[in-house]
């Protein structure tokens, strides 16, 4: 199954690397450059997963996750946070959102994809092909 995945980060190298990996795994990568754009794209596309940075212009990744949770159409969308500020996050705040996992930068793209597959229920295209 092809999943839509919104990737939000103001750093081009992160969105490029992650969207390349996501596309290679057979999913559709939708790139946003700030929190606001990410929210707009999420409401428009209703993705299966959101991968977001914490610190972004206009709206932080945490606010984005809270808004997604508050919104009927995206209230169950899992969020994977990739951040250089992992130590600034309070577990209590995370519990109020659908942030399932926080990975601190620098991360291994391979590890990110393993988490993505896990969060999508282990149903990436590549794996389906392997299974078949």
């Amino acid at each position, binding site marked *: 199954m092809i999943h839509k995945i919104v990737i939000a980060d103001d*750093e081009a190298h992160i969105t490029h690397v992650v969207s390349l990996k996501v596309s290679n795994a057979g999913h559709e990568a939708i790139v946003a450059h700030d929190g606001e754009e990410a929210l707009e794209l999420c409401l428009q596309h209703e993705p299966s997963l959101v991968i977001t940075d914490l610190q972004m212009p206009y709206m932080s990744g945490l606010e984005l996750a809270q808004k997604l949770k508050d919104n009927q159409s995206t209230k169950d969308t899992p969020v994977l946070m990739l951040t250089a500020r992992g*130590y600034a996050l309070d577990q209590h705040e995370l519990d109020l959102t659908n942030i399932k996992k926080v990975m601190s930068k*620098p991360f291994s793209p391979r590890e990110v994809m393993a988490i993505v597959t896990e969060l999508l229920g282990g149903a990436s295209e590549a794996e389906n092909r392997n299974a078949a």
Partner: protein
Amino acid sequence: MSLILGHNPPEFPELARTLRDRCAALGLPAWIMGVNAEILERPEPAQPGAAWCTAPDFEQRLRTTVAETEIGHRSHCERAEMFAGAELVIVPIRTQRKTVCLVAALLLSETASVAGTEPESAAAKKPRPESLHREGSLSPDRLEQIDCTLQWMIDDLTANARLECDVESFGRQLSDTYEEITLLYKLREGISAETNPANFVDEACRDLLSVIPYAWIGVCFSRERREARSLAGEMMLYGDAPCQKEEFRFSVDLIASSLVPGTPRILVGEDRGAFACDSSQIAVIPFGKQDALVGVIVAGGKTNHDDAVTSIEIKMLEAVAGHMLVLIENAGLYAEQRDTFLGTLQALTTAIDAKDRYTCGHSERVAYMSEQIALAAGLSPNETERIRISGLVHDVGKIGVPESVLRKPGKLTDEEYDAIKLHPEIGHAILRDIPQLEDVLPGVLYHHERWDGRGYPFGLKSEEIPMMARVIGLADAFDAMSSSRTYRTAMPRSKVLSEIEKGAGTQFDADLARRFLTIDLSAYDEMVARHHSQANAEQGRAA
């Protein structure tokens, strides 16, 4: 002449100016304006239309027209009639999806007149600039085409600017990543090449400081020898630290009890104490084994735009801390192993020396004097250490010589002397199977060879005798002459030294003998006194 308003040039992206200049090339005068319709930059005076547009009311009309379009944060360009026959195309210039300024381009029809924007009389005096582009008439289709052209242009310019920005960010990221990888490689190299933990810490911190954006780094080691080993109680500060070493130690002590090895801490605001010098957060990296704190790395004074400690920096600091920990531990274990080994050798030689109370402490003294001679001869530290160890074990072979011979007072028979002469080969045979002692065997086997070839067991001559053996031979002879034996009492110091001088070039390597005479013997004399009192005490106990 500059037409920029005010003293500080207003901030807008360079592509706004590019678009204005391109409009000018198409014959359309254009203004760079703020989002609130203020004029940021006018057309250059040399541009067509510039002079024509200086009528008193013109700019007010321009601003009102732009403001009335309420272009706000819309992303597409807008068109508005400024006055009859004069249309404005207003292009929003956007970065990061927000409009940061506008470019307003003026289109004039053949019939356009400045009437209404300036008094008739003033207009009559001004000639119309011939280069100014004028459309025969401004048909809706024509306006639409110009509209589209400008929109495409700005879309392309924006996309280009964004790509340029991306490439720059990629370049920066790549360069940072290279620096990080290089630091990690260097750490790995350092850990296999450097045996002195202090040197490693020094180099690693200096490298770290050049890679991560911090003004200073400090390392503070536990005072517990069991944990920090050779670096116990040490502290180092690199870069522009906000405090002195004592204050640094004090500040670390204050938080030390709350630190858990492997769990980094970030200090902010008041918590930073003596470490605070600006708004920067402080990274604290405690390292150690399980609950035992070996040391703490502290870094602060961030030098980039970001005051917050990032996870990437934490990971770099942790990598350095981890390597320090391994090296300190390895160096400690190595030192322990070496101490055990040397202790065993010491025990072995003490056992040999104990066979004969006259030779009590002989091995230790020969080891010491051999070391002094090696130093005086300028040999390398490694070679000196090997010579010292060889000196310690040089008489191990005496274990195979009967005590009756070793302890015999008076002159030895030829057979007894032959038995004594076997001890270098016996010692060699005993020690040759210990791999760690391979390097010291020549000293054991050849220490009774003489420079003139009249020694034993092989009668080697001059340079044929390994340097190690020449040094130990000299030290051995010196100690033998300086101590009492079963068959004679000790020689006075002056006689011993003159014997060595006499033996230069016959019994001894002349160069070594000459250097020997420069050695300060006070530590040797203290050693003799100590051994003497030990021997007396033992004899007392035995009696």
